[in-house]
C-alpha cells in the first residue's frame, strides 16, 4: 500500500497510465463492436420484411407479365393448372372472406363477452384460472384444430344440418372462430383494465349497475383497444391456413354460401406446395401472386387498425 502510493508519485511510472488508456481504448472498440452486432440482430427483422416484399413482388412481376391484372381481378374462374387456364383471384378471395366472416361472427362476440366478464365481473381467482386456459387454447396447433373441424365438428353439424357436405367453410370457420377467441379476449381485457378506476367509480356513484358501467363507460373508453383486437383477429382469420386446408376442401369455388366447400388464398398455396411444380413455372408463380394478395389484405387491415387506434385513443 505504502510502496504503491510512493510509486504513484514517481514520474517514471507514467506508462502505467497510458497502459490503462490503451486498455480503455480497446474496451471502447469492443463496446462499439458489440453494439454494432446487437444492432445487426435488431435489423434482421427489417431484413425479413424487405425479404418478404422482395420475394412476393419480384415473383408476382413475372406472373403479371403472363397474366393481365384485369383478368386477375375480374375473372370468375381459378384454374391455373388446367390447359384452359384462368386466373380469377376473386374465387379464392370469396372463400377467404366467407370463412373469415363465419370465424369473426363467433370470435368477436365471444371474445368481447369473455373480456368484459374477466375485466369487470370476475374475481381474481377466476381470472387466475381463466387466463391460462385461454392461453392454452391459443397455443393449440392449427393442424389439430383442422383435425377437430373435419372429424369432430363437421359430423356434429351434419346432425343439425343434414345437407352439410363433408368439407365446408362453415365448420372450418366456426373452429377458426374458437381459435381466435383468446386473442380478442386477452387484448380487449388489457384495454379495458387500462381504463382508470375513477371512471367506473363515477358511474357506480350515479347508481349504475356493473353491466351498465361496463357497456356504457368502460367499453367506449377502451374502444381503440377493442378495435385493435378485432383488427388483429381479422388478420388471423384471413391468414389462417391449416384449418381451411383440412376442413374446407381445396376446390376453387366462387361462392358466398358458407355451407359449401371452397378453397381460400391460403389453402390454395398449400395445395400447390404439396404438389411438385417446377421452379419458375406459371403454377409456381401463382402462389406468389396469391401471397401478395394476402399480404396486401392484411396490410390494409393493419393500417386501418393503426388509424382507428390513433383516432379513438382516449388519454387519461
Amino acid at each position, binding site marked *: 500500500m505504502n510502496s504503491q502510493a510512493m510509486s504513484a508519485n514517481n514520474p517514471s511510472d507514467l506508462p502505467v497510465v497510458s497502459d490503462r488508456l490503451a486498455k480503455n481504448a480497446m474496451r471502447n472498440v469492443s463496446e462499439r463492436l458489440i453494439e454494432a*452486432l446487437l444492432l445487426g440482430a*435488431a435489423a434482421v427483422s427489417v431484413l425479413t420484411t424487405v425479404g418478404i416484399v422482395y420475394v412476393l413482388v419480384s415473383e408476382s412481376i413475372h406472373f403479371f407479365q403472363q397474366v393481365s391484372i384485369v383478368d386477375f381481378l375480374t375473372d370468375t374462374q381459378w384454374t391455373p393448372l388446367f390447359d384452359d387456364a384462368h386466373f380469377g383471384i376473386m374465387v379464392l378471395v370469396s372463400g377467404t372472406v366467407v370463412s373469415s366472416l363465419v370465424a369473426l361472427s363467433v370470435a368477436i362476440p365471444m371474445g368481447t363477452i369473455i373480456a368484459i366478464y374477466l375485466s369487470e365481473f370476475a374475481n381474481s381467482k377466476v381470472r387466475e384460472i381463466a387466463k391460462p386456459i385461454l392461453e*392454452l*387454447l391459443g*397455443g393449440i396447433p*392449427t393442424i389439430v384444430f383442422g383435425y377437430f373441424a373435419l372429424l369432430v365438428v363437421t359430423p356434429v353439424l351434419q346432425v343439425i344440418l343434414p345437407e352439410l357436405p363433408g368439407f365446408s367453410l362453415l365448420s372450418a370457420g366456426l373452429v377458426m372462430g374458437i381459435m381466435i377467441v383468446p386473442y380478442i379476449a386477452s387484448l380487449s381485457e388489457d384495454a379495458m383494465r387500462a381504463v382508470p378506476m375513477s371512471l367506473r367509480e363515477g358511474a357506480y356513484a350515479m347508481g349504475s349497475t356493473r353491466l351498465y358501467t361496463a357497456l356504457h363507460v368502460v367499453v367506449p373508453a377502451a374502444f381503440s383497444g377493442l378495435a385493435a383486437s378485432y383488427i388483429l383477429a381479422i388478420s388471423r382469420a384471413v391468414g*389462417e391456413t391449416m384449418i381451411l386446408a383440412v376442413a374446407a376442401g381445396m376446390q376453387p369455388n366462387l361462392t358466398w354460401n358458407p355451407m359449401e366447400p371452397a378453397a381460400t388464398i391460403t389453402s390454395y398455396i398449400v395445395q400447390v406446395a404439396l404438389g411438385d411444380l417446377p421452379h419458375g413455372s406459371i403454377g409456381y408463380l401463382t402462389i406468389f401472386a396469391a401471397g401478395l394478395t394476402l399480404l396486401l389484405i392484411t396490410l390494409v387491415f393493419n393500417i386501418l387498425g393503426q388509424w382507428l387506434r390513433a383516432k379513438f385513443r382516449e388519454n387519461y
Partner: protein
Amino acid sequence: MQPLTTEQIRAVIARGKLKDTIFKALGLFCLSIGLLVIVALIVDMFIKGSERFTLDFFMNFASRRATQAGILSAWVGSLLVMLVTALAAVPLGVAAGLYLEEYAKRNWLTHIIEVNISNLAAVPSIVYGLLALGIFVYQFGFGQSILSAGLTLALLILPIIIVATREAIRAIPAMIREGSMAVGATRWQTCRYHIIPYAMPGILTGVIIGLARAIGETAPIITIGALTFIAFLPPVPFTGEPPAGLFEWVMSPFTVMPIQIFNWTSRPDPAFEVNAAAAGFVLMVMVLSMNAVAIYLRYKMRKNIKW
C-alpha cells in the same frame, strides 16, 4: 314528473341486478366453451388414437398400411428443426431485444425497427413460407432441408422472443444499471453480468412459448416443399466427419409432426384417422406441456421477484 315509489325503485334495482347475473352466466358460459374445446380435443384424440400408443408407433416410419405406420421420422424431424430454430432465434431475438432496450437511441431507425416488429407479428405464417421458398430454398440453395425449415420458423418466432426479452428487461429497475455503471462497468458488462441474468426467466418464458408455436406450425413448412413421406432418418447431429460432416444433418430432407398429421387427416381411408388422432395427441402433449411450463415459470417469477 312523478317521483318513483319505493317499490318501483326496488324493481329497477332488481332488474339491474338480474341483468348483471345473466351477463355473469353468459361470461362463464363463453369461457367454458373454450375449456370444453380443449377437453373435447384431448379426449377425442386420446380415445380414437389409443390403440396406436405402442412403442412401434414411435419407432416406425410412415407406411402405406395404417396399422404399421409410425411417427419416427416426424418426431425426430420436429426435434431437429426445433434445434435449428432455437439456435437461430434465441441469440438473434435476445440480442435484438437487448439492443432496443439498452442501446437504441430514440431516432427514426429505432422507430422503424419497432413498428416493423409489431407489423411482422401480424403477417400470416404462410407468407413466411413463401419468403423461405424464394430466399432460403432457391436463392441460397438450401433446398427443402432441415436448415430451411428451422430458419423459417426462427424468423416466424423472432417477434415473440424480442417482445418477451424487452418486457423482461424493462421490468429491471434503473438502479441496477446505475449501480453497475457506478463501479465502472461498461454498458456491455452491465448487460452481460446484470441485465441478461436478471431477465433470464422472462426470456426463457418467451423462448418456450415461441418454440411451442413453432413446433405446431404447418403451413410455412409445407410451403417450402417439405416431403410428406420420409422413410429414413437424417444423420445424427454433430457426429459426422469434421468439419463438413458435423453439419450434414441440417441439409437432410425431413418431415415434421404437423405435416404427418395433415397427411393422415387428408387421406380418405378412415384407418388413418386413428393415426392422425394418435399423432395429434402426441403433438398436443408436447405443445401444451411447453405452454404449461411457460405459464408456471411466469407465475413463479411474479411471486418471487421483489426489487
